[in-house]
Structure formats: C-alpha cells, structure tokens
C-alpha cells in the first residue's frame, strides 16, 4: 500500500533473521484487525452496495433498492467530471504552495535552529498552534479578513492592485489559499522529522568535495528529506482533494469553486441521492489511490511502498 510512505523512516532496514512466529504478536494484532474490519471494511462494503442501488419504482425521495446499477458511476462521472478535475487541480496547487512554504520552514526549524533547542521547541509549537483553534473558526476568520469591506481588499484597492469591483472571497484564489493555509502544518511536520535527523556531516562532506551549496542541497539534503516530503505531500493532497469546508459556499467558496466533497455533501444531505453520493466517494477514493501510487513510484521511493 502507498500508505507505507507515511512511515518516517526509510524502510531499508534489513529484516532480522526469520524468527519463530509468536502467537502473542498475532493476538496483539486482534484489536487492530477487528477495528479495521468493523470500521473500514464493513462500511466500505456497504458504500459499494449503496453506490449500486437503483431508485425504487414509484418511490419517494431517498428510497432506493439494492440492485446492480453500475450506470450510477457513468452518470456521476459524466455529470461531475469538471468538478473532479477541479478538485484535483486545487488540491495539487495547494500541495505545491504548502511545499514551497513548508519546506523552508521545516529546514529552518530542523537544521538552523538545531543549536537552540528552546527556540526550536517554540517554533514547532507555533507551527502546531493553529490546531488549538477550531479549523472552522479559522477558516471563517479568513472569510472576514478577505471580505469586500475588509482590510486586505481595501488596501489592495487603495494601491490600485485590485479594481474597485473586484473581490477575493468565493474565487478559486480564496479556496486554494484556504486549503494551503489549513494544510501547511501537515506538510511542515513530516519534512521537519526528516530534516531534524539530517546528519550535517554529509553536507560538510559535500562541501569538502567541492560541491556548490546548491548542488549539496539538491544531491544531499533533498534526497535525505525525501521521505518527509513524500509523506507531507500525501498528507496534504489526499485530504485536500476531498475537502468540502474551504470550498463550501458558507466559507471561502462560491458556486464557481465547487469541489467533489461539496457535491457528495449535497447529494447525501440535500438530495438524499445516496447512490450518487456513494458512487462519487468511490470514484474519489479510486482516483486518489491511482494518483498516489503513480506519484510514489515516480518519485523513486518504491521501497517506501
């Protein structure tokens, strides 16, 4: 599974010689296995069955029967493919910006602040600090900050950087901004974990061998921090693709910025169209699995799989 990439350490540790299988280890696995079965496999199976349901003949709103209506998948893909593409586009853009912001931040905390443990701890706390406030409240706060009569729009208009009638909330910019902002800690922390263990003697050796700082960074630092980058991008991209808060009309989005999560929500809660919502969820899950597998393979870290 691609999710092996979340493990912080490169999985190149050689397996110890085959040991006698201990029944205790298997026994200890039971709660976890039971949990996965009950809360992942059974709901997943239920989701698949729901996605194939057909509306009951002469039925009322929300009444469906078990069937094998695979056409549900065709319908949702046909209807919502622009939304699916938009979701992955927004998620990829947000992941990119989170990486651009998160990597230097993680480098600074993990490498430059290494000699000042107090400052390092403080900086790390600051990265996590936003989690002390509800994600919803923070996103709503951005809506206020970006409001038409707010400081940001006012200042940009005074500087003639924005036309008088222009606005920020409800645009793709505000949604991608919200996604980036909300996922920066998820990007920063795994990269920090990798960089924090970076042996500076390797960097020194690069210098001794007459490598320029750029090529030391590209050939030594980046490869050594790659596991963190991969985990960070996955931790950002996967939830961002399914996020429905930032793009919601009540938060930073509008009817122009609808993401796949909003479509699933509307089909489930408003239209009571459970098969469509289930089919979309499965399409989303499959698309993410495919994209992530390709990404992990391409990034040359198959050994993380």
């Amino acid at each position: 599974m691609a999710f092996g990439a979340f493990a912080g350490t490169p999985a190149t540790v050689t397996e110890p010689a085959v040991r006698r299988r201990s029944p205790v280890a298997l026994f200890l696995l039971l709660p976890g296995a039971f949990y996965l079965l009950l809360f992942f496999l059974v709901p997943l199976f239920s989701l698949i069955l729901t996605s194939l349901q057909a509306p009951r003949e002469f039925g009322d709103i929300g009444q469906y029967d078990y069937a094998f209506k695979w056409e549900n998948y065709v319908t949702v893909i046909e209807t919502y493919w622009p939304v699916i593409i938009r979701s992955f586009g927004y998620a990829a853009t947000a992941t990119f910006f989170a990486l651009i912001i998160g990597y230097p931040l993680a480098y600074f905390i993990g490498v430059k602040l290494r000699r000042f443990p107090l400052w390092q701890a403080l900086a790390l706390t600051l990265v996590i600090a936003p989690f002390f406030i509800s994600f919803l409240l923070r996103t709503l706060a951005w809506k206020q900050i970006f409001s038409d009569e707010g400081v940001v729009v006012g200042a940009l208009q005074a500087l003639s950087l924005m036309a008088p009638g222009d606005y920020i909330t409800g645009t793709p910019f505000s949604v991608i901004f919200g996604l980036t902002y909300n996922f920066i800690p998820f990007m920063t922390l795994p990269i920090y974990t990798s960089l924090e263990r970076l042996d500076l003697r390797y960097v020194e050796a690069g210098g001794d061998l007459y490598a320029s700082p750029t090529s030391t960074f590209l050939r030594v630092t980046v490869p050594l921090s790659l596991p963190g980058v991969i985990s960070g991008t996955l931790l950002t991209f996967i939830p961002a693709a399914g996020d429905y808060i930032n793009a919601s009309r009540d938060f930073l989005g509008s009817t122009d910025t609808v993401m796949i999560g909003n479509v699933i929500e509307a089909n489930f809660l408003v239209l009571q169209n459970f098969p469509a919502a289930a089919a979309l969820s499965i399409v989303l899950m499959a698309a993410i699995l495919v994209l992530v597998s390709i990404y992990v393979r391409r990034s040359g870290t198959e050994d993380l799989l």
Partner: protein
Amino acid sequence: MTRQLPEDPIIRQLVAQARRSQLSRRAVLAGAGAGATALALAACTPSGTEAPTAATDNSANDPTLNWANWPAYLDEDDDGNNPTLDAFIAETGIAVNYLVDIDDNNTYYAKVRDQLVLGRDIGADLVCLTDWMCNRWIRLGYTQPLNDANIPNKSNLNPSLVDVSFDPGRTNSLPWQGGFAGIAWNKERVPEGIRSVSDLWKPEFKGRVGVLSEMRDTIGVIMSEQGVDISGDFTEDQFQNALDVFREQITNGQIRNVAGNSYLDDLVNEDTLVAICWSGDITVINYEAGDKWEFMIPEGGGTLWNDNYMIPIGSTRKTNAETLINYYYEPEVAAEVAAWVNYITPVEGAQEAMLAIDPELADDQLIFPNAETLSQVKVFRGLTSAEEQSFDSAFQAVLLGA
C-alpha cells in the same frame, strides 16, 4: 405456508426488507459468498417501503418531553432561561428537555431518517420543521395524528393556516412560527433602497447580491416577480423560467453568495449589500449589529412559510406533546414568544395580548401582518414527490455549477 410475521414493528420491518431485497441481492452477489454480510448490512440501512406504525403513548406514566427546535426560536431571559417554558413545566409537571437541534431542514432529516423509516424514537417527541419538510414527513407517514381533544386551543389557529395543501384541516401538524422571504438592503450603502427582485440584478450590485439556499424562497420570489402564483398549480416550465433567471444571475457573477443560516454574516461584513432573505432575521441583526438594514416584501410578492409542530412516529409521549402545543396556543403565551423571536405567530388573539407587553410590536407587520400585508405573500404549494426530486436536483445543479 408462510409464517405469521412477528408483532414487533422493527422486526416486521426487517423481515419485510430482507424478503424484498432477496432477489436483487442474489443477482448481485451470486458467487461472492457475501450474502450473509449483505443481509446484515441491508438491515442496517433501511430504505422504507410501507409506512411505519405509531408507537404506543406512554405519557401517563412518563411526564417528560423532548422538543427539538431551531436556534433563537424561543423566548429567553438574560440568564438563558426560557420563561414561558419554565411556566409550562411548573404548571403541568412535565419535564421538558428543550433541544436546539435543528439547523437545517435537510440536515436534520438526514440525521433522523433511518429511525423514522423503522418507526423508532428519534430522540425528540416534538419537532418544528418547515412546511415543505412537513409535507414530506406526513406523506411518508412519519408523523402521528394530533388528538384535537387534547388541544382545545387549536380553535385559536389563524383561519388562513388551517387548510394547507400538505395537511388539510391540520390533522398532523400545527404552526409554531412563520415568516416571510423578501428582499433586504443595506441602508447606508444603498440609501435609495430596492423595490423588486429585478432591482437586485442592477449592474451596480454585481457580485454583492446574496440569496437563500432554500429553493422555495429564492425561486419562489423570482417566480412571483414573473407573475406566477406560487401557491397555485404552476407548471414545470414556469419553475424552469425562474430557475433560468437564477442560473443566469449566478453565471454572470451578479449573485455571489448563496447561503443558508450563514447569510447573515455576509450581510454584516457587507459582502452582501442587497439580498433575498427572511424577515425575522433582519430584525435580529438590526438589533445586534446596528440599525443598518431594511426588509420589505418585493413588489412582485414574497413567500410565506411556517415551521410546524409534528409528533414523530416513534414518540411514546404524544399526549405530553399535545399538552405543550395547547399551552403555546394560549394567546398570552404566544404573544410573549413572538415579542422575543419577532416572527409571525399563528395564534389569533396574540395581537391583543401583545398590547399588554409592547404596544409598538402589536403593529409590527412582520409579527402581526394585516390583510394587506398578507395579500402580498404566498405559500409555496406542496410539491409531489416527483416534482420535489426534479426541482431540488435542478436547483442544486445550479449551486454545484454542474
């Protein structure tokens, strides 16, 4: 020979469900060896065919009541107590658990639907939902009929609200509070005001228009503007015409905000300068955020809606619920609630009672509309299930940009 079905309604339902879904499931899962799991799952996700049967009333032995309602919808003093409700508890000895559980008709329905289908307790013995959602509950048999003998004050119901299309004669529902959907504007930013829905589409408001995500209110006022009687037998084409206007104004960027309860934030931070909105809310934000907004019923006409009491099918405290309804149909009590919530009370005589509380409010058209005001608004007619599905999908498709 078929065995007789067991007595218990839940088990009956499960057996019926299992029988019904046998064929299709066999087709789907033939060879998959997953039949047993599927059966268990089918039992967990009821889809509902026959109407559930009402629970037995146990009010006599159980003097409690769970009442689910919307936020800011019951009088409250500075300490957070509800004076009218406290008086009811003291008077009758029924311990009422007041739950502010309903934030949105659809979301609440999605939350309790599975229990309703099985006729089980949803954790509330009395719910207040909007007309069209009541229509759905009553149509699907999710409510218990009201016993008029326990509600003598039903005679105080405003005559215009008795014969509604979704519940003629009010056998399963009674109004709690009502309100209008109309237009509002920011008096400071738009001093000249607006008069009709088409004023919202003026170029100077581009991107600063907000509308409600409640289909019947937004499309309802647009249809009224187009001269359609929304309480009459309008056609799908007439609905479509209004939807076309709505879609066009969304696509060209005139309407930026389409929201449910959160639309008030957009008015307060002035992202929205002109809006389609609900009457009582404007009174509330004028009170909380400075007297800046004005509400009116647009020239083409507005909508009138009510939130109605219903007793869910699985409630075992029907008589207690009826006792509470009867209490809130006392004109004096209704006036006290209306003075706080600022919505239309359905109770006749409350206006006279209001004179004793606050004479100014007794003339407030948003609480006690006179015949002239009421002639400007219409109730969106009850839709058939097929219409509801088709209209909802079309409206959501615009909101989802699909």
